């Protein structure tokens, strides 16, 4: 099916997320949509999918104008979408998720589960997915969940399939498999809109490329275009993603993790005998596909998790069994993976967020009260030093953009007397300019002789920052390798394959 978007404009209040965007996807074409974080890609696709109503513009399917009042209409018209954030119901089975909204029924609305199962099996076998229709989605790894999303779209005979950053949660191998599937689908006549910021993937699979920046189409490109060309189109200037890192001057072992094991409440083992050391002045980066225990590892070190066994020694002091507060007081700086959930109190002001973990004693307190003068003074300094773009210290942190929120967290965590610095996904959802800044600060911490532990799912970030790389798979450390290990080897380790 041919898809055409004409002059789509979508505003959120004063923010113009899509500014008169036009693009055409030919039948059987893989059309890549490229753009930085916040460029407006997902918004455009949500408009196409009927989730948002465009403020201006038109959608044409096979040259006929259509208006979608909701996703139901879009799906009826043959549009399928795999969302950036999966739209699966965790407590439902695969079959239930797939049939939701177009359920096969017996008389009287009684669900025909057999038919739904059959449909899942049929599509699974067509693409070589091994998905059991009766598995609970919450029990499936992310890669499999994504396949469920694809089955969902295909089960409705999608003729235009939108894939919004499908590779972010996949191993390189799984990514390759997905590329094959995309080609297979395109060959059978399905049009595909493929969103990503990974240039490599675009070059591998796309027939046409549209680049969006700040809500506008800034250019079209052929898959043969070079990475540098694409990157400068995306960002609007020349970018240099390498980090200037002075040579390593590692000191003694500072953080020693031995046989760390952790169970969740259901007895599931999430960390399995994890052992590693980080030396003072060294960055150890943990690579791995999301959901292989990295989050649990950092949270276990910080004392946020129960049922943790083994040992975490920081400068000789045992941390396992201590409270979060004691561990923070021991000098651990911690940038959580999900800043909105764990790092900030959205309705608190920037100034309040900057003293979040220091309300018990210290310079921010005066007797039983808060020392407001010091708090505001500190906020002023931090806003200046970290170039936090905010109207002021009293602005609620939730109103800042993602990158600036991250800087608030960073400013807070770096302002303490550090013995260890842990950062999870330090630049997730942050623009290129801020990434450079954040990376510089992390390297500066390392150079002041503090051990640094970084967790990231972006291999580019890992290779840019790490002195050594530990790869996690299913709660274990598969291997610890030097920072110059080739991508392909890292990819294999991330898939649990040891050389």
């Amino acid at each position, binding site marked *: 099916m041919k898809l055409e978007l004409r002059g789509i404009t979508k505003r959120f209040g004063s923010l113009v997320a899509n500014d008169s965007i036009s693009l055409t996807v030919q039948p059987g074409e893989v059309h890549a949509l490229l753009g930085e974080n916040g460029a407006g890609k997902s918004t455009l696709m949500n408009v196409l999918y009927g989730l948002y109503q465009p403020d201006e513009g038109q959608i044409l399917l096979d040259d006929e104008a*259509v208006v979608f*009042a909701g996703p139901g209409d879009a799906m009826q018209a043959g549009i399928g979408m795999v969302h950036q954030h999966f739209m699966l119901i965790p407590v439902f089975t695969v079959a239930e998720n797939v049939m939701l909204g177009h359920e096969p029924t017996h008389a009287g609305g009684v669900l025909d589960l057999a038919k739904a199962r059959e449909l899942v099996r049929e599509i699974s076998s067509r693409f070589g997915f091994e998905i059991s229709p009766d598995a609970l989605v919450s029990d499936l790894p992310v890669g499999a969940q994504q396949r469920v999303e694809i089955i969902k779209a295909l089960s409705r005979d999608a003729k235009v399939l939108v894939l919004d950053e499908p590779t972010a949660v996949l191993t390189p191998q799984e990514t390759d498999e997905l590329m094959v599937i995309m080609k297979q689908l395109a060959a059978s006549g399905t049009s595909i809109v493929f969103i990503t910021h990974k240039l490599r993937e675009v070059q591998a699979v796309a027939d046409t490329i549209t680049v969006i920046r700040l809500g506008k189409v800034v250019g079209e490109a052929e898959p043969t275009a070079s990475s540098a060309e694409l990157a400068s189109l995306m960002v609007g200037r020349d970018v240099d993603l390498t980090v200037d890192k002075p040579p390593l001057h590692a000191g003694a072992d500072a953080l020693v993790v031995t046989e760390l094991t952790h169970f969740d409440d259901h007895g599931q083992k999430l960390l399995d005998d994890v052992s590693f050391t980080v030396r003072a002045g060294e960055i150890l980066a943990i690579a791995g596909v999301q959901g292989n225990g990295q989050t649990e590892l950092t949270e276990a070190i910080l004392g946020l998790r129960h049922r943790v066994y083994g040992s975490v020694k920081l400068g000789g002091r045992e941390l396992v069994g201590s409270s*979060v507060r004691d561990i923070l007081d021991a000098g651990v700086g911690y940038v959580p993976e999900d800043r909105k959930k764990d790092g900030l109190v959205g309705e608190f002001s920037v100034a309040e967020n900057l003293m979040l973990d220091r309300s018990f004693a210290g310079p921010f307190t005066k007797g039983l009260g808060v020392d407001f003068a010091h708090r505001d003074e500190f906020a002023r300094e931090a806003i200046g030093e970290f170039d936090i773009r905010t109207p002021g210290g009293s602005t609620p942190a939730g109103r800042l953009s993602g990158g600036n929120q991250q800087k608030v967290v960073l400013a807070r965590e770096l302002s303490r007397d550090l013995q260890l610095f842990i950062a999870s996904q330090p630049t997730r959802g942050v623009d290129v300019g801020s990434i450079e800044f954040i990376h510089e600060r992390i390297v500066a911490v390392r150079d002041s002789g503090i051990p640094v532990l970084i967790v990231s799912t972006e291999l580019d970030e890992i290779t840019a920052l790490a002195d050594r790389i530990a790869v996690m798979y299913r709660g274990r450390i598969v291997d610890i390798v030097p920072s110059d290990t080739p991508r392909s080897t890292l990819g294999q380790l991330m898939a649990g394959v040891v050389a």
Partner: protein
Amino acid sequence: MSTDQSVNALPPQPRANQLLQAVLGGGFVRTLLAIVLAFAVASLLIIFTNEDVITASGYLFGRPGDFFSAAGSAVGDAYAALFRGSIYNYNADTVVAAFRPLTETLRFAGPLIAGGLGVALSFRVGMFNIGAQGQILVGAAFASFASSMIHLPYGIHLIVAVLFGLVGSALWAAIVGVLKAFTGAHEVIVTIMLNYIAISLVTYLMRTPLLHDMEGSNNPMTIPPDPTAVLPRILGEGFALHLGFVFAIIAVVVYWWLMERSTTGFRLRMVGINPDAARTAGIDVRKIYILAMTLSGLFVGLAAVNQALGREGSFTPSVDGGIGFDAITVALLGGSRALGVLGAGILFGALKAGGPAMQVADVAPEVLGVVQALIVLFIAAPPLIRTIFHLPGRPKRAPRKVKATKQLEEAS
């Protein structure tokens, strides 16, 4: 996986907090309009049950004027009586009698403010304490014990009795915090059950020598407090207004300082808005739940003390006087802020004080219950008030476009 990431980028907030915003956000004018609207709706109840109006409605079409003047005077009389009963009695013979209504309003406001602060505190920590009723009962029982079974000199006795009351309520409330922290039981259920348990328990205690004069009647009832433990009147004998109101004002200041200025309040609010971030910042969320309920109980305890020691007489298990539930509406109306609760407490105090006068004007007292509920309902829904009064506000949602594609509809 968050449910709303791609459409709603701001972090999800705990309920109590959203409601706080909803209640607070609109400001003074909207609050006023909500109150006006509530009274307007209640007027309908007054009109349609007023005898004169019913008579006049018999010949509504013949002489509509009669109907409207009867309706007008029914409503006018009712609200004039409310004014006389709660603010200033312009019919009174003496100055004291003229101003007594205002002092009565304040006297009723005292426990409402204290209870409202207690409930408000729990809201701001993201909890819903509907257990003020039980907490007041237990606190009052404690205060009664200290005021009648322990005998101490003036001054000290009052202090001891007040402390007993505060501790009683705080203990009862702390149970909620402990259960929530350690078993995860939902505080709404726990507080409701504890209300019922408190009624039975306190009734039982009011039959035992702990609280009861076994020589007297067998009714569940306390022994009157020693004169040394009664909250003294502050405006002289002509007015029943007593020290409890001063305590309530002090509680407002304490609450303000605690929530807005102190480090403890900082942590309480933090847990209320984002418990995950609080945990990551080294705060023991369970301890905060227990602390919050205990503090909430302390404020409620002040309401209990007002009820138990505000008069020289004894009291029965109905000592809570509906304050437990009114405190919730006071907290909601006051946006859980110190000043808001003060204002809401005084407003509801006025409704209580004015009720008898309205009854004398032949209006069923239940009307005021309806008014209270409506005020909160209207305040909680800013868009409703905006629509009704055509106020400017956030632009309405873009109107849904009509489906243009017929085929789509038919296909579905």
